[in-house]
């Protein structure tokens, strides 16, 4: 069987143990995070557990299908999406540390496979569902990169284009952390240029956009750039390492985990 049924979940994780109070959460770790940035997945689980969640990791999961979908190859994305829907259907809460993957599942599955799956990006889950204010200490100057899909597809914030009341869930989440100086780049929500396959299709423009974001964060004195999506951060990190620059990238989950452990 490909997935655990709802009833089987607690015993599957800790055989023989008593059922723990708290929210059961299935963790979706995006494929590239699983393989190249495992620390982001671990930090996500840590943060969720610290805030009272029982975290499950359905082991048959692979990917949401976005790489194929955004390339136009919907026939190839479909079975991957259907697989995802099957694996995560039994869980009430599915949390993913990526705005882009969350948007793919929530906003595009209906078109692709005829049914949406309820998923939450990590920050919106903490903010909207658990309604928690993380505490702790993280004495660093952090530049906030607002990843596009989290911002404009999930509305984690209001965005600079629209005339709506200013909101920012990520900023709110980080606001309770002591000594964390959260800095605004001069262009508050410009794309970093990753864009999935765009990074390869339009390599030159992609790199130019990334270097412009880096320059913006450098100019405001950030030591660390954070964001909700490791994909953007991987792109920026690749540029930073190539250029030998001291600016570092950390996923929001990593900052929360470190702050709360401090």
């Amino acid at each position, binding site marked *: 069987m490909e997935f655990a049924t709802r009833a089987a979940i607690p015993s599957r994780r800790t055989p023989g143990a008593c059922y723990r109070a708290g929210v059961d959460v299935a963790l979706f770790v995006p494929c590239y995070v699983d393989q190249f940035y495992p620390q982001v997945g671990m930090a996500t689980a840590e943060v969720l557990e610290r805030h009272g969640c029982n975290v499950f990791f359905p082991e048959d999961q*692979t990917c949401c299908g976005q790489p194929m979908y955004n390339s136009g*190859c919907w026939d190839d*994305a479909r079975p991957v999406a259907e697989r995802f829907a099957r694996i995560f259907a039994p869980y009430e809460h599915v949390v993913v540390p990526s705005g882009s993957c969350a948007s793919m599942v929530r906003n595009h599955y209906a078109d692709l496979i005829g049914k949406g799956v309820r998923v939450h990006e990590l920050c919106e889950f903490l903010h909207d569902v658990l309604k928690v204010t993380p505490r702790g200490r993280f004495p660093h100057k952090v530049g906030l990169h607002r990843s596009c899909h989290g911002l404009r597809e999930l509305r984690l914030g209001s965005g600079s284009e629209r005339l709506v009341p200013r909101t920012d869930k990520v900023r709110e989440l980080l606001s309770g952390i002591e000594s964390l100086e959260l800095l605004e780049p001069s262009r508050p929500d410009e794309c970093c240029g990753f864009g999935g396959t765009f990074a390869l299709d339009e390599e030159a423009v992609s790199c130019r*956009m990334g270097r*412009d974001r880096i320059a913006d964060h450098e100019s405001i004195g950030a030591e660390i750039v954070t964001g909700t999506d490791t994909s953007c951060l991987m792109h920026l990190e690749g*540029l930073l390492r190539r250029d030998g620059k001291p600016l570092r990238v950390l996923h929001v989950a990593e900052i929360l985990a470190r702050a709360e452990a401090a």
Partner: protein
Amino acid sequence: VNLHAEKAALFVSDPARSAWHDQAVWWVRQKRDNAQRAVPEWEELRSLAAQIKAHALSRLADYLEQFERNAQALGARVHWARDAEEHNRIVHGILRDRGVTRLVKSKSMLTEECHLNPYLTERGIEVVDTDLGERIVQLLREPPSHIVMPAIHRKKEEIGALFHDKLGTPAGLSDPKALTEAARSHLREKFLAAQAGLTGVNFAIAETGGFVVCTNEGNADLGASLPPLHIACMGVEKIVPRARDLGVFLRILARSATGQPITTYTSHFHGPKPGGELHIVVVDHGRSALLARPDFRRSLSCIRCGACMNTCPVYRRSGGHSYGVTVPGPIGSVLAPSVDSRKHRDLPFASTLCGSCTDVCPVRIDLHHQLLAWRGELARQHLIPSYKRVAARIGRGVLSRPWLYRFSGWLARVALRVLPRGLLYARWNGWGRGRDLPPAPRASFRSQWKSRGHAR
């Protein structure tokens, strides 16, 4: 071949110029933001505009006929053109029949789209674009790179050199005011000598038969008023039902385009001037085909404000010419493939799908979702490169089998660790041309998670 990527790479290869262009266009986006903040009901206006356009498009044939009747009652002649060729033939016919050899034009992206200028020039008619930006690109023998600011890709020094060459301004003169003055007196002669004026149309009003042209330079008014003959060219989608709908559109157009509350001139034309002639050429050129496609019809709501270009991080860095079409940027990348999907198959991929265009659009066109929809459509038409099709097929195979996925991930991480840098960053690696590859941890998340579980 990915034409946009190639031309964009060329533009970006001059980092100073690309950065200058980005900043110049971003400045217009900021002006738009400031103008928008002065209108508290902005989002409501966007919704209203989108609804009016959706309604007008849903009854397009009826409104067009109503417009025709009312325009004719005002004394205008209305012509119908199925495509660019017919449009050009009609315009040329009107001019030829009246012996016109000198035509002044105000900005019209439709006539750019139809390539009217070369058509008329080949037939012995002198065509002078009178919008300053359009005149600059005309003298440069270049297409516009932006629909509102046609010469935004050119620096004032380059324009100074051009005017020195073509208009005889002093060498080295690059003061924008002085250059504008020079263009003004040069154009004044053209206006006075012209036998006909051609304008575009921003809004055609079904209930009155009148139409509105918005400019900042007054050139449309001069061109329409001095010569006895006025030809106005419009796409079928320019229709709005009622005059009072202008109260919505005129408030969002200039604010979105340039950050002005309203264009300097908003000229209403109701029939020909006394003793003159007014011809209105209504052009389809692929628009009704687009209307027939539910996925893409909303793109016909476009009012050509250019805000999606100004906000597009790709457009700002790659320049308008990289798109190879009259209307560049996000809206152009949606419109162009509907005319010729094979020729413009690269454009829906010239976007990161960041969605800024959708949020900035004053008529709420879901631009980045339409770009995504085009990608699916192009794949269905087998118009995406074969390497992408193969990669997607492999991706599907790997991601459908957890064991194969785990093995592939492991293999990739091992490769990243053990392969020599020369091999890892060889030509095949597009990612690695300007960036380093990601780190290669020994254990994936899932194996770390598993071992953590055992430890507890």
